[in-house]
C-alpha cells in the first residue's frame, strides 16, 4: 500500500511522458513479485475493491477522529476530495507495517461480504497502521473511487523496460481480463500464447512534417500522395480469425472499436492493413473531437455504434495471406490491395484517394482541394521503397480570419504577456473564438503593455479585458463544432498572424464568416 500510494501521488505531480515512465519503471522494479499483478490491475483500473460507500466511510472516520460534522464541512471545500479529507483528519500514526498489497487485497475481498460492524473494525484498524498518504489510497480503494489515469502506452513501456518482454506481447495480456487472485505475475507474463505471434504488428513508418519546398524531396514521379485525415493512424491485423488493432503509439486499441474487430470484415486470413480510423455519420466525416470523446468512453452504447460508426481508410497492405509485403514496392502493394478489396466489407473499409503524377503541380492542386474532401493534410510516400522509409506530411495552407483582441493574459510573475484572446463580432458584441500564444515582438509587447494601462476594462486575476482596438490576422488549420463554447466553434492550431494596422476594430470579421468557412468544408 505504501509504494502504491507513493506512485499514485507522484504520478499526479509529473507531467512529461518520460518522467512518468521513469517513475513507473522504478516502481515496478521495487514491487515484490506477489504484488506485481495487483499493481498492474489497479494501475489499469481493472480491480473493484469497493466494500462500502464514501458516506459510511465518512461516518466511521469522523467518529474515530472525534471530528464534528460541521468541522468536516469546513475542511472538505479546501481539499475538494472526500477520501483525502478523511485521510487528513484521521489521527497520524508512526507505525509502518510492511503488509503487502496482495495481503491487503485479500483482506478487502474477504470483508466485502461481512456485516457492517466487522467492516468498520477492519477499516478503523487499517487506518491505525496506515500513514496519511496510504489512507488516501485506501479510502479511495474501498469506496471504489481509485482511478489512475495512465495511458496503456505508458504501462506497456515501463513493463517492457523492466521485464524485457516485447511490447506487443505485453499489450494483448494487458487488455485481456486476468484475475490477480489466482494467477502469479510470472505465469501471467510467461505463459505462452498464440497471440504473441498473431497480434504482432509491423513497425510504424515515421512521418515527418514537410517544412521546406516540396521540390526539395525529389522528382514528383517517384512519389505518391495520399490524403490524410484527422483520425487514428492504425494497423489492422487479422490472423487466425482474430482481429487486433494497434495505434501508432503501440497501444492495442481493439476493444475501443468493436465494429472494426469482427473477423468476417475480411474474408482472407493473415492480413495486415495500414490506415486511419475515422467516425462517420451518414456520409459525413465527423471531426476529431468526436473520436477523442469516443475513445475516452468506458462503455460504447449501441446507439453510438449505429449513429457514429467507425470506419477505416486503407492506405497500404503490409501482409497478405501471411506473406510479408511491407518492404515491397508501392506497385506490388497496390496489386495486392486490388486483389484484397473484393474480400473486404466495403461498409467499413474505405479506399484512400491517391495522387500520382510526374509533376508537382498536380500534387499542389490536389493539396488545394484537400479541405473539400475533409482531408487535413497530404501524405507523401516514396513509391520505390528505399532505406529511408520516412513519409512526409504536407500540411495545408492555413485558413485566416481578421479578429479583434479582447483579453490579454499575463505570465505568473506578471512581467510578460503569455497569451492573447481574440473575438469576432456577433451583433455588435465580440465573442471569443481562440486564445493564441503571445508571439509578438518585444517592442510590440512593450507598446501593448503601455496601451493596456489606459485601455483595460476589467481584471480577472492575470487576465485583462481590453477595449476593442487591435485587429490581427489569425491563422488556423480547421474549424470544428464545439457546443460548449459561446461561439459554437473551435479553431484548430490557431496562431497569431500579422497586425492589421489599417483595419478598425468595427470592420473586423464577424462570426458569420467563420460559419461560412465551416459550412463550405463539410460535405
Amino acid at each position: 500500500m505504501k509504494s502504491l500510494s507513493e506512485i499514485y501521488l507522484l504520478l499526479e505531480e509529473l507531467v512529461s511522458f518520460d518522467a512518468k515512465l521513469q517513475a513507473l519503471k522504478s516502481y515496478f522494479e521495487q514491487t515484490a513479485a506477489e504484488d506485481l499483478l495487483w499493481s498492474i490491475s489497479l494501475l489499469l483500473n481493472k480491480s473493484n475493491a469497493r466494500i462500502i460507500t464514501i458516506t459510511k466511510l465518512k461516518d466511521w472516520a469522523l467518529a474515530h477522529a472525534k471530528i464534528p460534522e460541521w468541522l468536516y464541512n469546513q475542511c472538505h471545500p479546501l481539499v475538494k476530495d472526500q477520501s483525502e479529507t478523511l485521510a487528513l483528519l484521521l489521527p497520524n500514526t508512526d507505525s509502518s507495517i510492511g503488509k503487502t498489497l496482495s495481503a491487503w487485497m485479500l483482506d478487502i475481498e474477504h470483508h466485502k461480504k461481512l456485516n457492517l460492524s466487522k467492516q468498520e473494525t477492519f477499516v478503523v484498524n487499517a487506518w491505525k497502521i496506515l500513514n496519511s498518504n496510504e489512507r488516501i489510497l485506501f479510502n479511495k480503494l474501498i469506496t471504489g473511487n481509485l482511478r489512475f489515469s495512465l495511458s496503456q502506452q505508458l504501462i506497456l513501456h515501463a513493463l517492457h523496460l523492466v521485464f524485457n518482454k516485447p511490447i506487443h506481447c505485453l499489450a494483448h495480456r494487458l487488455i485481456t481480463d486476468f484475475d490477480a487472485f489466482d494467477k502469479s505475475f510470472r505465469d501471467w507474463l510467461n505463459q505462452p500464447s498464440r497471440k504473441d505471434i498473431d497480434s504482432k504488428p509491423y513497425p510504424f513508418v515515421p512521418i515527418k512534417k514537410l517544412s521546406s519546398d516540396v521540390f526539395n524531396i525529389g522528382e514528383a514521379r517517384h512519389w505518391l500522395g495520399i490524403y490524410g485525415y484527422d483520425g487514428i493512424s492504425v494497423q489492422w491485423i487479422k490472423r487466425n480469425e482474430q482481429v487486433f488493432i494497434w495505434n501508432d503509439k503501440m497501444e492495442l486499441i481493439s476493444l475501443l472499436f468493436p465494429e472494426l474487430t469482427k473477423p468476417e470484415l475480411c474474408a482472407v486470413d493473415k492480413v495486415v492493413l495500414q490506415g486511419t480510423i475515422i467516425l462517420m455519420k451518414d456520409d459525413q466525416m465527423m471531426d476529431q473531437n468526436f473520436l477523442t470523446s469516443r475513445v475516452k468512453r468506458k462503455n460504447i452504447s449501441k446507439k453510438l455504434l449505429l449513429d457514429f460508426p467507425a470506419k477505416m481508410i486503407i492506405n497500404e497492405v503490409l501482409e497478405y495471406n501471411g506473406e510479408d509485403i511491407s518492404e515491397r514496392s508501392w506497385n506490388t502493394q497496390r496489386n495486392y490491395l486490388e486483389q484484397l478489396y473484393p474480400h473486404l466489407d466495403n461498409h467499413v473499409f474505405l479506399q484512400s484517394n491517391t495522387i500520382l503524377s510526374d509533376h508537382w503541380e498536380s500534387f499542389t492542386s490536389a493539396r488545394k482541394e484537400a479541405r473539400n474532401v475533409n482531408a487535413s493534410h497530404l501524405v507523401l510516400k516514396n513509391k520505390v521503397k528505399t532505406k529511408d522509409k520516412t513519409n512526409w506530411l504536407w500540411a495545408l495552407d492555413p485558413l485566416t480570419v481578421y479578429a479583434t483582441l479582447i483579453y490579454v493574459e499575463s505570465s505568473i510573475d506578471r512581467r510578460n504577456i503569455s497569451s492573447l484572446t481574440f473575438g469576432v463580432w456577433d451583433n455588435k458584441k465580440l465573442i471569443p473564438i481562440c486564445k493564441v500564444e503571445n508571439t509578438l515582438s518585444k517592442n510590440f509587447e512593450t507598446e501593448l503593455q503601455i496601451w493596456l494601462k489606459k485601455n483595460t476594462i476589467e481584471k480577472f486575476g492575470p487576465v485583462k479585458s481590453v477595449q476593442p482596438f487591435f485587429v490581427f490576422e489569425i491563422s488556423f488549420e480547421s474549424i470544428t463544432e464545439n457546443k460548449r463554447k459561446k461561439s459554437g466553434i473551435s479553431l484548430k492550431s490557431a496562431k497569431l498572424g500579422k497586425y492589421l494596422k489599417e483595419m478598425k476594430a468595427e470592420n473586423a470579421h464577424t462570426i458569420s464568416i467563420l460559419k461560412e468557412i465551416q459550412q463550405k468544408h463539410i460535405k
Partner: protein
Amino acid sequence: MELLSNTKNGLYCEVADVYIDPWRKVDKALITHGHSDHARPGHKHYMCHVNCVPILKLRIGKKINVRGFNFGESIHINEVRFSFHPAGHVIGSAQIRVEYKGEVWVVTGDYKLENDQVCTPFESIKCHTLITESTFGLPIYKWATQDTIIQQINQWWAQNKADHKISVIYAYSLGKAQRILKHLSHDIGNIYADNSIYNTNNALIQHGLYKRACQTLNPESKDLDGALVLSPQSSSALNNISKHHPMSTAMASGWMATRNKRRNRLIDKGFVLSDHADWDGLLEAVRSSEAERVIVTHGYQSAFARYLSELGLRAETYDTAFKGEPSLS
C-alpha cells in the same frame, strides 16, 4: 474596558496607549516579528525583541526609531508590564505578555511548536487570556517533523541533480529560507539564493543571528548544473536561467498539505513545511497556556474558536464574539 481591544488601527492597550502589530501608523508599536503583515512602516516608535531589530531596519528602513528587548525583560508603560517571549516562528519572533493589576494576557503573534534549530523555540506562557493565531486552524493541517521534510527535499534535489536539472525552492525570505538552507545537505551541490534571501541572511549573519552563508544568484553564476536555488518567488533571473537549463520547481509551505493546492500552483513539487503551528500545535498551545479565555485571530478563527468552545473553553474571535452557539453552518 478590556486590557487589550481590537481597534481599527489594530490591537490596542488603552492603559499604556500602545499597539501590538498595528496595521495603521501609530505612535508606539510593539512588534511580534518582522513579517510584513505584522511589522508595517510608518510608526514613530518600534519596540521588539533584540534579534528583530536588524530585520526591521532591513525591511522598513535604517532610520526607524526602534528599541530591542531581551526575552523576559520587563517594559513598564503606565503601570502595564510588557515582556517578549519566544514564539519559535522565525528569527526575532516573540509572543507578547501583557500584565496589569494581576491580569495577564498573551498575544502569540505567529508561532510554531517544533524547534527548528534556527530561532529560539516556543515557550508556553501561562495567562488568563490568550490571543492566538489560527493560520492553519483546521484538522486537515498536521505537520510531519522537520527532519522528514528535509529528507524529502534532499532526495528530490539529488534526483534532480542526477537528471541535470536545477532545483528551485520557493520559500519566504525570512523563516523558511534560513531553515532550509541550514538543514539541507550541503554535499549534494551548490546552493544559491535570490537577492532578497541573500540580503536577509547577510543582515542576520552580520548580527551573529545566523551562520550558514550562501552564494547569490546572478546571470554570471557558474556551476548551476544540479544546483539548488532558494527564491521567494519566480524572478527574471530565474526566467533567464530556465531558458538554458532544465529546472524543477518546488514550494515549501503548509498549504502544500492538500493535493488540490499542489496541483493549482504552477510548480512541480510541494513540500509541507510551515513556520506556523499545525492543528495539534494550536490545541497544545491553548491547553498549556491554561487560559480561561481564548481569542482567535489571523486564519480560520471562527472554525477554531467554535471547536474550542465545544471543548468547553470560553473562545471568541475578534471579528464576531463567539458565544458557543452552533450558528455556523
